[in-house]
């Protein structure tokens, strides 16, 4: 393709316009926003007050469960990217964007960055409610930032995976299905109960799935405990998923649109 530019095409400029668009669309999609913001809070209250009394984790249950709720919230929040992307892919607007010489990846980038903004908001909300019901982290500000940082890296990686799912989904409903999968992924991990209490056959999966090291890292940082190798594992998982997600999304996008 010869691309003698008459006007500069800038991925960054296009992506920032697309980000504004995605943010407006998510803020105005009240149902989805409400679910993304309040479902995690409801689940946290449910775990702490209804199940928490029966679960013995060696600490206050709320202290144990907050990182798990945060990851549940982040996973579900990221998966909404698939819905937004697939709405675009299956509607008329993609044809217009493509016929306008806009960098293709900018549409996906806009959705991913807006997903990060949305998740940051819901993370803050969960932490605020957690604090109200007795969560007292023992972390210094740097550790808190570290915990939020690793969570956002996880959100970035999962949002790109979601974007890829959104691109290949032939309907919005199919893209929605990914959200349910992600919603259940934290259960077989150390999110809500210690893995040792689970049947042995599931240990292998629960210990080695990507959410566990991210949760363990956040837990260690927030409670000022030794990190062990969980931070490296979490970074490796998130980095790997991020690369895979970006490649899959852009590859699928090119396949789908040409």
């Amino acid at each position, binding site marked *: 393709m010869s*691309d003698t530019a008459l*006007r500069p*095409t800038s991925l960054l400029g296009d992506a920032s316009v697309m980000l504004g*668009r995605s943010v*407006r*669309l998510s803020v105005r999609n009240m149902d989805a926003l409400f679910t993304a913001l309040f479902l995690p809070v409801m689940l946290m209250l449910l775990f702490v007050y209804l199940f928490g009394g029966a679960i013995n984790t060696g600490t206050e249950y709320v202290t144990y469960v907050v990182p798990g709720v945060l990851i549940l919230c982040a996973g579900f929040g990221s998966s909404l990217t698939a819905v937004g992307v697939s709405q675009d892919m299956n509607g008329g*607007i993609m*044809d*217009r964007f*493509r016929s306008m010489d806009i960098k293709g990846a900018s549409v996906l980038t806009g959705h991913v960055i807006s997903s990060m903004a949305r998740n940051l908001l819901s993370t803050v909300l969960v932490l605020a409610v957690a604090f109200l019901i007795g969560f007292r982290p023992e972390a210094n500000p740097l550790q808190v930032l570290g915990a939020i940082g690793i969570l956002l890296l996880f959100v970035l990686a999962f949002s790109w995976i979601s974007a890829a799912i959104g691109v290949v989904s032939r309907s919005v409903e199919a893209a929605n299905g990914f959200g349910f999968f992600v919603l259940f992924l934290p259960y077989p991990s150390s999110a809500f109960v210690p893995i040792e209490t689970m049947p042995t056959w599931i240990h292998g999966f629960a210990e080695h799935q990507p959410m566990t090291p991210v949760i363990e890292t956040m837990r260690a940082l927030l409670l000022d405990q030794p990190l062990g190798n969980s931070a490296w594992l979490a970074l490796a998982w998130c980095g790997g998923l991020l690369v895979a997600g970006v490649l899959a999304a852009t590859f699928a996008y090119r396949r789908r649109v040409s």
Partner: protein
Amino acid sequence: MPEQPAIEATGLEKAYGEVRVLRGVDLQVARGSVFSLLGPNGAGKTTTVRILTTLLPADAGRALVAGYDVREQRSLVRRSISLTGQDTAIDELQTGEENLRMMGRLCRLPRRRAAARATELLDQFDLTESGSRRVGTYSGGMRRRLDLAASLIVRPEVLFLDEPTTGLDPRSRQQVWEVVTDLTRSGVTIFLTTQYLEEADRLADQIAVVDGGRIVAQGTAAQLKQQVAGHRLDLVAADRRAFDALTGHLGARVVAPVPERLTFSVATDGTANHVRAVLDEIDPARRAVARFTVHSATLDDVFLALTGHTTTQQEKETAGV
């Protein structure tokens, strides 16, 4: 050297698996003209538009739009065109103004310029009052107008309109027609697809009739109408036996026979002499033909004569291609 056409396509072919959607389409569209691709659903109209707007690669053939090759110079083509597709390409959750401003920014206008252009367009398309409302609350006609406005942020060399009035009520259709007529005055080349003969007749300088992935006729509305001899003689047979005998006698000259209603038509020049001669020829005993009417040919007749079916007949069977 003659001026280069706005669109020049030769031998475009496209197949989806076994289904051959385009079987060698050739087109030439003069700069500043309105060109209409007329045909039923599934004839290959949208596929042609998607190829010409770089959204879909053709299996064979070559196309130049605004002088650039749609395959080799995709970016340059994209900078010269605008597309208003069949599906509305605006965000329901954004206001009309936000949609236009966003498109302006994506056309790389500076922020302030984009806002000013949005205001101008809202005014031009009679949407100023609804500009601050979300598109979700708009009527079909308003959406279509906004959609058109969004494709005119920067004046394109070639504007593609894929069935711009399908599904609109008559009043909204009229409004879209006015917009298109205004645009032609500003020198934009317009490539328009439609299933409506009236629309092509009204807007287009040149019409190409497409059916089954091929151009079956091309010319001005007047030229096309001449192809069916200008007038049409509609006949009603006395009974089924007479119907069979009459249509049998006429053979290939029969247009639109409907056995259940005993009706069929024949092309005529509309003179009394010719009508009398046709009647005498096919019904010398003066018993087989019950009634007749003569009227001047419409584009519908052209379509029927060229393709053997009306524009609406095969819609559902081939929809979606």
